[in-house]
C-alpha cells in the first residue's frame, strides 16, 4: 500500500517511516511542509496519507488546509490527520464532505503501533478513525440531546466505539460481545436516534458522526 507522510519533526518522521515500512507499507513521499504535501498528494495519489496538522512554513494548520484542498481536488482521497491536540472544529471540517476515508487522531496514538496501523488501514479502506477524545467532546456538546439520553449505558459504549470508526467485529472484540449482540445494539441505537439502518460499516459510522455533528 502506498503512503504519503507529512511531518516536520525529523525524529518523528523517521519513526513513522520505520513503523509503516515494518508493516508492509510503501512510503512514496515523506515531506515536511504544507506546499510539498499538497504537491505530493496530488501527484502521487497515494492509497493513504498520514499528515501532521502543524507544518511549516506558517506552523499553523498548514497540514489540515493542504489535506482539505487535496480532498477537494481528489474526492475521497484517504487521509489520516495527526495532531498534538484534537478539536471538534477540525473534525467537522474534515468530515464535512461526508465521503469517508478520514482519520483524525492524537499523536499519542502512534505509541500503540498495532492500533495505529489498524487505523491507517481502516482509513485507506474508505473508513474513518476518530480519536476517542474527539468523540468524548462530541458527546459532551450533545449532552442535552434528547435521543442520546434514551440510550442504555451499553448502547452508549457501542455508540462511542462506532463513532471512532470501528466495525461491529472490532467493537465486539473490545466489549467482549458476540458480533450479533453488537448488531442488536446498533439496531437499537439507530432506531432511537431515528437513523436509517445500513449494513455497510463505513456508512453507518458516517451517519452516526453526522448525527453528532448536526447540532
Amino acid at each position, binding site marked *: 500500500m502506498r503512503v504519503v507522510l507529512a511531518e516536520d519533526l525529523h525524529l518523528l518522521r523517521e519513526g513513522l517511516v520505520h513503523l509503516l515500512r515494518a508493516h508492509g507499507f510503501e512510503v512514496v513521499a515523506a515531506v515536511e511542509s504544507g506546499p510539498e504535501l499538497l504537491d505530493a498528494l496530488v501527484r502521487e495519489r497515494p492509497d493513504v496519507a498520514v499528515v501532521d*496538522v*502543524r507544518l511549516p512554513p506558517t506552523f*499553523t*494548520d498548514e497540514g489540515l488546509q493542504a489535506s482539505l484542498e487535496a480532498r477537494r481536488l481528489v474526492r475521497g482521497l484517504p487521509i489520516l490527520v495527526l495532531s*498534538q*491536540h484534537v*478539536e*471538534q*472544529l477540525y473534525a*467537522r471540517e474534515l468530515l464535512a464532505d461526508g465521503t469517508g476515508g478520514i482519520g483524525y487522531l492524537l*499523536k*499519542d496514538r502512534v*505509541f*500503540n503501533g498495532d492500533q495505529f496501523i489498524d487505523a491507517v488501514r481502516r482509513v485507506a479502506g474508505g473508513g474513518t478513525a476518530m480519536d476517542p477524545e474527539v468523540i468524548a*467532546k462530541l458527546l*459532551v*456538546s*450533545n*449532552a*442535552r440531546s434528547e435521543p442520546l439520553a434514551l440510550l442504555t449505558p451499553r448502547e452508549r459504549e457501542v455508540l462511542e466505539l462506532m463513532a471512532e470508526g470501528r466495525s461491529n467485529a472490532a467493537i465486539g472484540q473490545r466489549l467482549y460481545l458476540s458480533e450479533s449482540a453488537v448488531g442488536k445494539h446498533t439496531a437499537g441505537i439507530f432506531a432511537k436516534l431515528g437513523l436509517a439502518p445500513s449494513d455497510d460499516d463505513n456508512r453507518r459510522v458516517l451517519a452516526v458522526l453526522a448525527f453528532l455533528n448536526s*447540532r
Partner: protein
Amino acid sequence: MVRRTLTALGGGTALLGLALLGQIVGLITLAGVLLSFMLGLVFAFPPAVRLARATIGLHRSLVLRLTGTRIDVPYLPAPPPPVPLHDGWYRDGRKLYRTPLIPSFNQRLNWLFKDPATWRDLTFLLMNLWTTGLVVAAPVLLAVLGVVRLVSGDPLGVVWTALGAGVAPWYAPRAVRAYGRVAEAMLGPTRKARLAQQVDRLSAARTEVVDSQAAELRRIERDLHDGAQARLVAIGMTIGAAEELLETDPNAARALLGRARDASATALQELRRLVRGIHPPVLAERGLGDAVRAIALDTPLRTHVTVDLPGRPEAPIESAAYFAVSELLSNAVRHGGAGEVWIDISHQGPVLRVTTTDDGHGGADASRGTGLNGIERRIGAFDGILAVSSPPGGPTTAVIELPRAFAAPRRSPIADWRTIVIAMCWTLCWIPLFPQGLVTMGLKLAGVRVKSWFLAMHVAEPFQWPVIIGMILLGGAMLTTGVVLSARQREAEVGVCA
C-alpha cells in the same frame, strides 16, 4: 422657544445663586487658608478645602444638568493610610509617632496643599460671581433692575426690563452654554492632571499584570515539576530497569516497557492541558474567531458565533479576549442555567468588541463573581472594559471592548490625488485671486494703464471685466476647495485615531 428661554433664564438665575453661595464659601475657605498659614492653625485647612470641594461638586452637577457638559473630577487620588513599621510605630519623615493620627493628617494636608486643583477651585469660587455669574444672569438682572426703578417712580425703568426680556431668547441659552465652557476649563482636569490620573491607572494595571503573571508562572512551574517532569524521571527509571531485565526475564522487561509507554502518554496529556491553559493551540493556528467557535462547540449549549474581523488582532489582546470569552461561556454553563448563547465578535476601527448573550436566569454581579473580576483584570491591562447587564430572570449580556486591538491603518507614504489637489489649491490660489484678480480690478478702477503681467489688461476692452471676475472666482474656488478638502482629511484622521 419660550420654554427654552425660560429654562435658560431659570438656569442662569440658579447659577447666579450658586455663584453667590460660592463667593461666601470662597471667603470662608480663604479665611481658613490664611488662618492656617499665617497663624499656624493648620487644622483649619482640610475642612475649608473639603467645603470648597463640596460647593464645586454642586457646580459640577448643576452644569451637567443645564448644559450636558460633564466636568471630570481633577483631584489627585487620596494618599493610602500610613502603614506601621514592624515595631508598631508610625514614621513620618524623620519622626516616629505612636499613633497614625499625625502622620495621616500630615499626609492629607500635603495631598490637599500640593494639588493644583485646590487652588484653581479657590480662584474660581472667588472670581466666579463677578465674571461669569453676572454674565449668565444678565437678562434677569436687567429686568429686575427695571422693575425696581419702575417701582421707585422712574418710568425709564421699562426700557431696562424690555431690554432684558428682548435679548433673553437669543442671549440666555448661549450664556448658559458659555458658562458651562468656562466652568469646564476652570474646574476640569488639566492636561497634566489627566496624564497623572492615567499614569496612576496604568501603574496599578501594571502591578496587577506583573503579579498575576508571576502567579501564573509559579503555577506552570509547579505543574511541570510535579507532572511531566516527574513522569519523565519515572519513565527513564522504568526503561533502565527493563534494560537490565532484558537478558534474564524478557517478559518482565516487556511489561515494564508497556508501563513506560503508558506513563509517557499520561505525561503528554498533562502537557497538553498545560499548553491549553497557556496559549490554546487553536488560537495560535486559526485566530480568535475559530478559537471561540471551537470552545463554543465544546460546551453543551446551543451556540451561535458571528465573527467580523478585518484580520488578526495583536497577539496578547487576542489571547485576553479568548480567555475572557471562555470564562463568560463557562459562567453561562455553570451559574447562568443557560441553554443558548450568542457570541458576536466585531470591530469598530481599531476597537475589538465581543458581545455574549445567553438566555439564562441572569443575576450575574461583577462585584461578587471572581470570574468577572478576573476578566476585568486581564483586559484592564489593555485598557479594555467589561460591561455586564444581567437583570434577575435574564438575559445576561456581557460586552468586552478592547481599544487599539488592530493597528490603525497607516496612511500610504505616496500622496493620493486629494493631497495633490490640496497642495495645488493652497500654493496657487493666490495667483488668480490677487495679482490677476483683485489687484487688476483695483488698477482698472483707478484708471491706471499698466499692462505688465496682468492678463486682463492684455485682452480687448470688452473682455477685461469678465476676465478679472473670472480670475477672482477661480481663486476663490481654489481656496474653498483647499479648505474643505483639508478639513475632511483632518476629520478622517481623527476618526482613525479615536
